[in-house]
């Protein structure tokens, strides 16, 4: 991807890379933890369908046409991880764009790759605007494991412990852009030095692996369930309160993974999530039963029938179902 970035950068300086928020150093000279990417840039995202998806980011660094933020009323606002972000398709084939096309109403995408529940809630706290009618929490089954990292992040945890905490990210986009540009430069340096360091690394004693071995981490992980069910419930409850205070209706959309109908998939996690959402009285849109189960071969919704993000037809079907559901 770095090669593509450097080649495209020569043709237009507006090209940039999509950097996961958690790739930025938590302690940095700008004293912020960003929840989006570089603003007003041609962002190179990912390649799973045989081409690199590229989008022009909005004023806050999300995957939206910039003018969407000027609309008086916002019908749909989506928050989630890479699936909401639009991996790995171009506009107008991502979830939010399809909703925009179908409804002919405004829709804002606040999804970003690597987001977990706490980062999604933090994003809503920072960027939710008063004129939004429907908020969609797009859930993918790896979100609960992302929560483990998020809770150990000193900045993110403040969103959970202090309801008035804000980083005022909307007003610090210049700092966010600078920080991510620094991170890209660091990544470039690291990749360029990787080959040189490879031989050195071979000789190094792997302390992390040793400590993990002493702590029998792998065995414990395979026995005990994922940390954070109660925190997930707490975050979802806070999200509901936040959207209620904003006069918006909250929907929870459950996206199925590639292994959903295979043995590897944990039905317990699915049941647990559904139970939490129902307990909080949030509308649950189950994409597995509504879309994937009705399809003879649901793997057609994945690139080349392989594990990954959805393809164009996958996102289209899901967006159509969400649209129909909300128009009932």
């Amino acid at each position, binding site marked *: 991807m770095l090669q593509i970035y450097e080649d495209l950068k020569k043709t237009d300086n507006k090209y940039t890379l999509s950097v*996961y928020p958690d790739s930025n150093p938590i302690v940095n000279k700008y004293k912020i933890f960003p929840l989006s990417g570089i603003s007003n840039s041609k962002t190179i995202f990912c390649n799973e369908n045989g081409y690199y998806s590229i989008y022009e980011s909005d004023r806050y660094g999300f995957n939206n046409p910039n003018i969407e933020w000027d609309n008086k009323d916002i019908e749909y606002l989506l928050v989630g*991880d*890479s699936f909401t972000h639009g*991996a790995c398709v171009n506009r107008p084939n991502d979830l939010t764009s399809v909703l925009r096309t179908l409804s002919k109403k405004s829709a804002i995408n606040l999804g970003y*790759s*690597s987001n977990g529940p706490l980062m999604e809630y933090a994003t809503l706290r920072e960027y939710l605007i008063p004129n939004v009618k429907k908020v969609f929490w797009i859930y*993918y089954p*790896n979100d609960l494991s992302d929560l483990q990292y998020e*809770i*150990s992040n000193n900045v993110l*945890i403040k969103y*959970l*412990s202090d309801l008035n905490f804000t980083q005022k990210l909307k007003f610090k986009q210049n700092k966010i852009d600078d920080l991510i540009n620094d991170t890209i430069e660091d990544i470039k340096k690291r990749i360029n030095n990787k080959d040189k360091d490879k031989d050195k690394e071979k000789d190094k004693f792997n302390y992390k*692996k040793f400590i*993990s*071995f002493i702590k*029998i*981490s*792998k*065995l414990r992980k*395979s026995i*005990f369930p994922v*940390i*954070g*069910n*109660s*925190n997930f419930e707490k975050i979802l409850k806070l999200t509901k309160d936040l959207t209620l205070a904003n006069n918006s209706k909250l929907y929870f959309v459950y996206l199925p*993974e590639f292994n959903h109908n295979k043995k590897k998939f944990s039905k317990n996690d699915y049941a647990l999530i559904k139970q939490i959402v129902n307990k909080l009285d949030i509308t649950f849109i189950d994409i597995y039963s509504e879309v994937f189960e009705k399809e003879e071969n649901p793997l057609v919704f994945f690139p080349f029938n392989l*594990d*990954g*993000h959805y393809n164009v037809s996958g996102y289209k079907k899901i967006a159509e179902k969400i649209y129909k559901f909300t128009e009932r």
Partner: protein
Amino acid sequence: MNFIKRIFSPFCLTISVLLIIYTYYKSEIYWNGLNNEYYLFYYIFFFFFFFFSFISFFINQKIKEYLIILFSSVVLAVFLFEGYLTFNTKTKSYKLKKTIT
């Protein structure tokens, strides 16, 4: 064996106290008390271990010998299995999962 028998109880007691302190650190300081539910099992397990260590000071020497054999076998089996999970390349499919973000 006599030396092992002599140090077994103080060793278990020290380890159990250290593990309880470490669990408290992880639960209350590192995670700010946000994962108490997850650490509850560890508290129960290590307090049980502490209790067992205390009892082991007063048990019959023969039973102690059996306990040492049982204890070392369990520890060895656990670390052998952990070694298998750590170093067996076939179990590294979780790394692929991480690409879905």
